[in-house]
């Protein structure tokens, strides 16, 4: 069990965005979280990574309670994430974005007097990640100059820099053209061989083709959880998605 949540809950004032969610993710899984808009998927992610404080319940990563830790502390335990909206360092180059993400996990990032280019390991690792994702050619472009699809890929590259054991991806293909989405799916499949992933996604063909397990959220609660084939046939899921006309 790499990640476990117990009764995880988030209230915003009187609104309960996420209600008592129990999620268990085994090592090596690609676990998809699906659900209609407003189901609480991103809120759930933000609680896992410390971006939002938890109202109730707890999060365990590798049996360790990480509830209430700050985002940078959780990032260092081995959880990497990408964001639903691109959150990049737009005025910095692609390589610098990845190098910064990488250097947080190496020595010397608080060094005042050494020129940053003298730290070779993070630099080499960043180049290696760009090569793996076939982004070498755009390394010198500013992140703000990239196409949307390229920015989504850079999001994943930065999440990978942390060498995470668990990767959380928030709608990796959102806003992508079909061609770009196909590339992304191929990339995610490849990454799925190396690490555990939790993916929030709307693109059902992507979900069905890559995930080993699916959890369906509806109005903040889990209404179904299981293998892709079970979920596809689940009447409650159909109801939630199709508005009761199943």
């Amino acid at each position: 069990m790499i990640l476990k949540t117990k009764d995880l809950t988030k209230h915003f004032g009187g609104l309960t965005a996420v209600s008592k969610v129990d999620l268990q993710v085994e090592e090596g899984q690609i676990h998809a979280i699906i659900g209609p808009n407003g189901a609480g998927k991103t809120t759930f992610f933000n609680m896992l990574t410390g971006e939002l404080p938890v109202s109730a319940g707890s999060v365990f990563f590798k049996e360790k309670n990480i509830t209430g830790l700050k985002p940078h502390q959780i990032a260092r335990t081995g959880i990497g994430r990408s964001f639903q909206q691109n959150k990049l360092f737009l005025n910095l180059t692609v390589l610098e974005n990845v190098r910064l993400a990488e250097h947080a996990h190496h020595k010397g990032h608080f060094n005042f007097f050494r020129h940053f280019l003298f730290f070779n390991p993070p630099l080499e690792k960043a180049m290696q990640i760009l090569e793996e994702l076939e982004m070498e050619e755009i390394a010198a472009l500013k992140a703000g100059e990239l196409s949307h699809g390229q920015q989504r890929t850079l999001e994943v590259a930065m999440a990978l820099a942390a060498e995470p054991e668990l990767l959380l991806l928030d709608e990796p293909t959102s806003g992508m053209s079909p061609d770009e989405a196909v590339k992304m799916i191929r990339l995610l499949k490849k990454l799925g061989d190396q690490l555990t992933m939790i993916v929030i996604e709307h693109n059902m063909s992507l979900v069905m083709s890559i995930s080993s397990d699916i959890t369906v959220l509806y109005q903040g609660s889990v209404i179904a959880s299981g293998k892709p084939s079970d979920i596809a046939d689940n009447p409650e899921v159909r109801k939630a998605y199709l508005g009761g006309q199943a």
Partner: protein
Amino acid sequence: MIEAALGKKKPLIDREIIVLAVILLFLPFVLPYKSLTPEILIYALGAVAFNILLGYTGMLSFGQGALFGAGAYMTGLVLIHLQIHPLLALLCGCLIGAATAFIIGFFSIRQVGIYFVMLTLAFNQLVYFIVYQWKGLTGGDDGLLDVPRPDFSIFPGIEIPIQTNLQFFLFVMVIFILAVIVIRRILNSSFGRVLVAIKENPERAAAIGYNIQHYKLASFVVSGFFTGLAGGLYALFMRMVPITAVELFTSTDFIIMSLLGGLGSLYGPIAGAVIIKIASEIVSEIWARWLLVMGVTFIVCILFMPGGVWGLVTAVIEKRKAASMQALRSQ
């Protein structure tokens, strides 16, 4: 690829620094008032130190006057009461500037945006009133008078005189250049790159594993160290510390110089300080209400030159480069 994406490794001293030193060296000979030149460099140093916060970390601090004043009073006080080596007195100014910045920063960085700005402003006023009330130590309203400016020796036998305007200018210039070299290296260090990341997107910087509160606080302390140094030099320059040194207006001076010169680079605030100090000297002789002219100029600059004077200069240079490349290609 690395060079295209990240630039070159810069040695501590390169052409940029030498060009800067040469330009500054000419200042006292082209300006009408010799006593103005040390003051320009002192303010330029304060503006550069302020720009570490606004231009690189993205924090608009109105507390720089408190740091400048702390450095000035500390340097003045140790020179008056302990008669120590001037360089040691300056170091005291740096340290008190850094310590004051630590305290102001510690509380202020817990907030962002307008609340952060108001906190730094409130701290500046707090320090001002402490100085104002503590007459026995600081001289209160009258300022701290009779700060000595003794000659000193670095090695036994080599006496450095700093009495005349030119001598003192050279002394300030050497310290200024050294400070710029160190600040440039700090901004190009791995630490400095994280500051830029925080300015760009603090949420993301935290998500990839940086403790942004530590970085912001350290950025404050570094800025305080060099602002304190500028304050110490000011005490030596004036041979006293006027209470205006610790006023809010000192903070806004640094802000205006940085904005006018350009936030994006190390050299923008230097250009801003040079322009504002010279212009205010010349315009104030012609018209007593010169601040009005400054105000209008400032508004025009902010509206039409968001990159500041330095941004304009680099844009022109780049355009020329692009044009000559074009010409080469069409041949």
